[in-house]
């Protein structure tokens, strides 16, 4: 991966000035490159990584395995895109193995999610079955450990 993309994917809030220092470049050049990456769609957005235990978020997250019937001409794409467009759907992936789509859905309550599945998801023509799992606890989010071991202290000065 591009060094700039790597830096941004870990710390999207790093200032242009600091990025330039790390990349041995200038703030103006870095800014221009970021604009290019945004314009060509390489960078789709910037998000904070939250710890649901800390933010006391009441949101419920479910992971749904969906089996669908592929269509002639379009395969899985048309149905997958249709599902992905729902605001409730946080992520949607085509999978190999025992089911076809992995859909991550966020909702205010178990009820809201089951309603979404029963009324929206399952009723779409071509959906064969769903299996829903609810998240109980988060240990790691996007490469960030949410439960940190106490850090061992290094000696303050070492040869």
């Amino acid at each position: 991966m591009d060094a700039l993309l790597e830096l941004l994917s870990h710390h999207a809030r790093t200032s242009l000035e600091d990025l330039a220092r790390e990349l041995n470049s200038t703030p103006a050049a870095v800014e221009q490159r970021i604009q290019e990456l945004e314009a060509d769609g390489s960078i789709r957005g910037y998000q904070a990584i939250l710890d649901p235990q800390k933010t006391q978020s009441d949101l419920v997250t479910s992971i749904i395995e969906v089996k669908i019937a592929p269509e002639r001409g379009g395969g899985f794409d048309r149905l997958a895109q249709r599902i992905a467009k729902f605001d409730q759907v946080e992520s949607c992936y085509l999978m190999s193995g025992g089911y076809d789509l992995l859909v991550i859905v966020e909702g205010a309550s178990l009820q809201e999610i089951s309603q979404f599945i029963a009324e929206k998801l399952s009723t779409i023509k071509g959906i064969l079955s769903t299996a829903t799992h609810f998240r109980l606890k988060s240990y790691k989010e996007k490469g960030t450990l949410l439960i940190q071991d106490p850090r061992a202290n290094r000696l303050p000065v070492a040869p």
Partner: protein
Amino acid sequence: MSQQEKIARHVAGIGRSGIRDFFEIVQSMEDVISLGIGEPDFDTPWHIREAAIYSLEQGRTGYSSNLGTPELRQAIADYVAKHYGVSYEGRTEVLVTVGVSEAIDLALRALLNPGDEVLYHEPCYVSYNPSVALAHGVPVSIPTHSEDEFRLTATELAKKITPKSKVLMLNFPCNPTGATQTEEELRQLAALCVEHDLVVITDEIYSELVYSGSRHVSIAALPGMRERTIFLHGFSKAFAMTGFRIGYACAPVELIEAMMKIHQYGILCAPVTAQDAALEALQNGARDVRHMRREYEMRRNFIVRSLNEMGLECFRPQGAFYVFPDIRSTGLASPEFSLRLLRAKNVAVVPGTAFGPSGAGFIRCSYATGLPEIKEAMGRLAEFVVETAGARQRERVSA
């Protein structure tokens, strides 16, 4: 006999490490940002720690062969052949040690007769001079200079060679300067070593950490050098495994055999848990090394530019995780600079003089510390430089 008189003369003659005094002051203070640490800030990658746990679970808690576990020695031989282009026989030409520090001690004790001279470039790692003295050798330092980016030139080496010279110690990439040598420069050194029949102890502990796409070359790989070189390396820096204490030596069988004799009676073998972890590092750690190298490189870029902007000149080192800026423009000597900076701004750097007299006028800043801390430290250092200049100005005016 007083307590002092009980101490052997060659031990009594060794000075306290300059780093140790400084360490004690730093330790007595709170909220210090330390750029004085010569070990990675990364935790050992989890799969390596997990391999150590697994090893314990399997009950691998006995001794290994004095030389090290056969699996690890073979993996080391393969790794050295692949990355450094030198072939060693895993069974007989590799010795696993307790860190490179032990390997240096073994090599010197195996090679030196009392009075033999050992050449080494300076500023250098703190143990070189005392280790030579402890092995009854005579340390002969060769000062290197900021104008040469602290490289060791053949001209400077030639000036110090005498009929008593037996060993040349090399450490590139270098702690504390970050200096590296090109292949051509190494060839010139190698030619002198062959001409004067010197044995080379090459400490390549930082050799995975070279930047800007530059390629590390080991002197052991140059023609005529394998038979006169003890190649030392370990896991501490590249794999962030300092506390595991695993290093190794690769050399012709007679030299390894001699080193093994000392190791066998002094240490017996390196800890097996740590050896098993080291094997995992060689087998599956390449990705971790790439990741850490990339991170170090960006920190280096950051710190080099910041230092130069505040008027503390330093070249862009191509290796290790140290920069060695020139602080003479502040009018302060290295220890004074470090102490005042620590007291005024709670930032710890190591005075260049801790690495030998030729480090005078310089400080060592380690970038094995997270970027947020580095940023904060650079801000405080810049303030310190400005305030020091202001104070000098006032002194001059009032004088």
